[in-house]
C-alpha cells in the first residue's frame, strides 16, 4: 500500500515577471517501509519535491496523498498537524535549537502534539537511546560533534513515531566516516520498518539505498530498484510520467 502517492504534480513559482517551473509533472508512489533516495543536481527540483512530500508546501496543481490524506489543498494548520504526526525531518545543517538541551530538542515535536510532560520525557529518552546518545541527553547541541548532532536530529525525527522520515542531505555537513555511520543508522531504522526518503545529490549515497529516484529539470527521469544495495526492495517499472507543460 503506497504511503506517498503523487499524481500529476506541478509546482510553479512566479519570480517577478518570470515563471519558474520547479516540478514539471511528477507521478510517484512510495510504499510503506521503503527506503528511497531522491537524487538530482541542484536546481533539479528535488528540494521542492521534498517540501511537497514533507507537507511544508502544496503543489500548484496535481494531487499529493500522504497516508491516504490529500494534502494538496490543505491549509497551513492542517499541514502543521500532518508534519507533526506523520513526518520526521532530518536536515543537512541539523537544525537543532542551540539553547535547548538534547532532551528538550527531542521533546519539541511532542510539545506541539500536546503530549504530557512525563510521557514526553520517557519517549524522548527512549528515542535518544535508540540513536545511541543516552549519556548526552543533558548536553546542549553545541557540546556535541556533528555526527552526534545529526543523531539528535534523527532522534527528534523519530520521536512522534512518524510514518515517513525525510532526510535532506543528512551527511552533507559530515566527514565520510561519520556520514557512513549516519547512513548505517538509517539502514537500521529501515530494517526496523521506518519509511525513509533521502534527498541527495551524491551518487555514492544513492547507491546504498534500495530504490533510486532520479530527478532532473523537475521531472523524474529514472526510478528503479537498486540491485547493488544489500537491502530488500521492490523492482518496479518507471511510473508513467505526465506530459510536461513546456
Amino acid at each position, binding site marked *: 500500500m503506497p504511503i506517498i502517492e503523487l499524481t500529476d504534480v506541478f509546482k510553479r513559482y512566479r519570480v517577478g515577471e518570470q515563471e519558474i517551473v520547479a516540478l514539471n509533472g511528477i507521478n510517484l508512489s512510495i510504499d510503506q517501509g521503503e527506503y528511497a533516495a531522491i537524487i538530482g543536481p541542484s536546481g533539479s527540483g528535488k528540494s521542492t519535491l521534498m*517540501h511537497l512530500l*514533507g507537507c*511544508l*508546501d502544496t503543489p500548484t496543481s496535481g494531487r499529493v496523498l500522504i497516508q491516504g490524506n490529500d494534502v494538496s489543498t490543505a491549509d*497551513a*494548520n492542517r499541514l*502543521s*498537524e500532518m*508534519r*507533526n*504526526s506523520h513526518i520526521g*525531518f532530518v*536536515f543537512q545543517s541539523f*537544525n*537543532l*535549537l542551540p*539553547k535547548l538541551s538534547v532532551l528538550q530538542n527531542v521533546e*519539541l*515535536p511532542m*510539545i*506541539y*502534539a*500536546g503530549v504530557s510532560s512525563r510521557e514526553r520525557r520517557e519517549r524522548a529518552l527512549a528515542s535518544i537511546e535508540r540513536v545511541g546518545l543516552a549519556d548526552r541527553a543533558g548536553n546542549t547541541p553545541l557540546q556535541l560533534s556533528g555526527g552526534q548532532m545529526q543523531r539528535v536530529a534523527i532522534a*527528534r525525527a523519530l520521536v*512522534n513515531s512518524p510514518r515517513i522520515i525525510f532526510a535532506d542531505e543528512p551527511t552533507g555537513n559530515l566527514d565520510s566516516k561519520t556520514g557512513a555511520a549516519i547512513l548505517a543508522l538509517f539502514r537500521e531504522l529501515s530494517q526496523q520498518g521506518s519509511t525513509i526518503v533521502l534527498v541527495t545529490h551524491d551518487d555514492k549515497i544513492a547507491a546504498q539505498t534500495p530504490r533510486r529516484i532520479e530527478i532532473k529539470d523537475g521531472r523524474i527521469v529514472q526510478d528503479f530498484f537498486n540491485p547493488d544495495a544489500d537491502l530488500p526492495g521492490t523492482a518496479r517499472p518507471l511510473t508513467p510520467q505526465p506530459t510536461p507543460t513546456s
Partner: protein
Amino acid sequence: MNLWFGFLVGLKEIWSHKFRSFLTMLGIILGVASLLSMFSLTAGMANGMRQYMQQVGGIERVGVIPQEPPTDQEGFAEISPGRTIADAEAIARSATLVSAVTPISELAAATVSFGSQYFRTPAYGVWPDYVPINSHEISRGRSLTWLDVESAQNVCVIGQRVTQRLWPDRPRFNPVGESILINGRPFKVVGEFTFYETEWDRRQRELSTKSAAPARTKRPTKGSSSSGRGYSAFERKNSTVILPITAMFYNFKMANVVKNEDQGPQLKLDALTIQVADIARFDQALEQVRTILEATHRGIEDFTFDTRQEWFDSIEQGIRNTRLSGGIIAGISLLVGGIGITNIMLASITERIREIGVRRAVGAKGRDIFIQILVESAVIGLIGGFLGLIASFGIMRILVLISPTENAPVLQWENVILSFSFAVIIGLLSGIYPALKASKLDPIEALRYG
C-alpha cells in the same frame, strides 16, 4: 502548546539575553515607577488637602459675610444693624437646619503674655459652639460654657502653640488654672486645645521622640515638628485664643478710639459662623438662615454666605487634573517602553527565523509561534512591571527624604494594581505585531534563512 509552557520558554529566552532584556524592561520599569509614584504623590496631596479641609471645619461650616447691598437699597441701607449678636441668637432660636452657630468678635493681633513672655496672635470672642464648628478639641481642662458667656467671665481656652510660646522652657506644661494677660487684661486659662498636625507630622514626631527618648529627656514638641516652618492652617489653629464674646465686649470693645475721638461701643460682629446640620439639605439650611437674617437686617441684603463648596470643588478638581496629567505623562513613558519591547521583539524574531522554521517543521502551527512571541513580550512587561513597582517604592522614599512635605505619598493598592496591569497590557500589546509577523513566516523560507 499550552500557555504555561510558553511562559517558561519566554522566561528562558529573556534569561538568555539578560542585559538586552533588562534594557528593554527599563522602559517599562521607569514607566511603571513614575506612574505609581505619581499616583501615590497625588494621593498624598489629596490626603493632605482633605485633612486640611477637615481641620478648617469641613463643608458644613459656612460664614455669614457682609456685602454691598443691592443698588435699589443703597439709600436706606443704614437701617440694617449689620451683623450683631441678635443675628446669632435668632439663628440659634429659629434655624432648625443649623446645628451650631457662633458670633465672633475678634482682636486681630492681641498680645498674650505671661510674665516676661509674650506672643501676638488673634483672639476671638465667641460662643461655646465655636469649638465644634471649627473642629477644635479640648485636650486639658474644659471648653467655654454658656455660663462663662452669660456672666462674662474672664476665662479663655488656648491652643498648644500659645502654651509653648508663653512657657518655652517647660515642655508639655499644663496651663490650666494659670492667669495670663490678653492686651493687659487678666484672663484665667480654663482649657487647652489638642495639638493639631498632619498625619505625617504626627508620625514623624512620634518616631523622633521614640528614638530620642532613651538618649535625652523629652524635647519640646515645638522643635520636632516640621509644621513650625510654615504658616499653615494647622499653625493658625494651634495659635488660637478664645474667650466668651461677652468678656470680649466688656474688656476690649466698649470704646473705639479713632483720631482721639471715641466712636462708642463696637458691638458689631467680625464674623458669624454657622454649621449646617445635614449636607443633603445644605441649600435649604442657607435659605432658612437667609430668611432669618433678612428679618434681623430689616430686609437689607447686606450679607451673603461664604461657603467652601466652590473652594473645595476646585481643590478636588485640581487634584484630579494633577492626577490625570501626571498619569498621561507617565503613560507616555510606558508607551515608549512598549515601543522598545516591540523593537526588541522584532530584532529577536529576525535572529530566530531559523528557530521558528524548525519549530514549524516539527509541527508548530502559526498560532503556536504567535503565542510564544506574545507570551515572551508579556513576560517582559510582567517582570518590568514588577521591578517598576519595587523601583517606585525606592523613588517614593527618596522623594520623602528630599521634600518632607505634609503631603507624604500614599500607596494605594488600586494604584499598584492599576500600574502593574497597565505594564502587562503594554507588554501584550507591543508583542502583537512581532508575534503576528513571526507566525506569518513561511516555514520553507525560515528554514533556508541564515
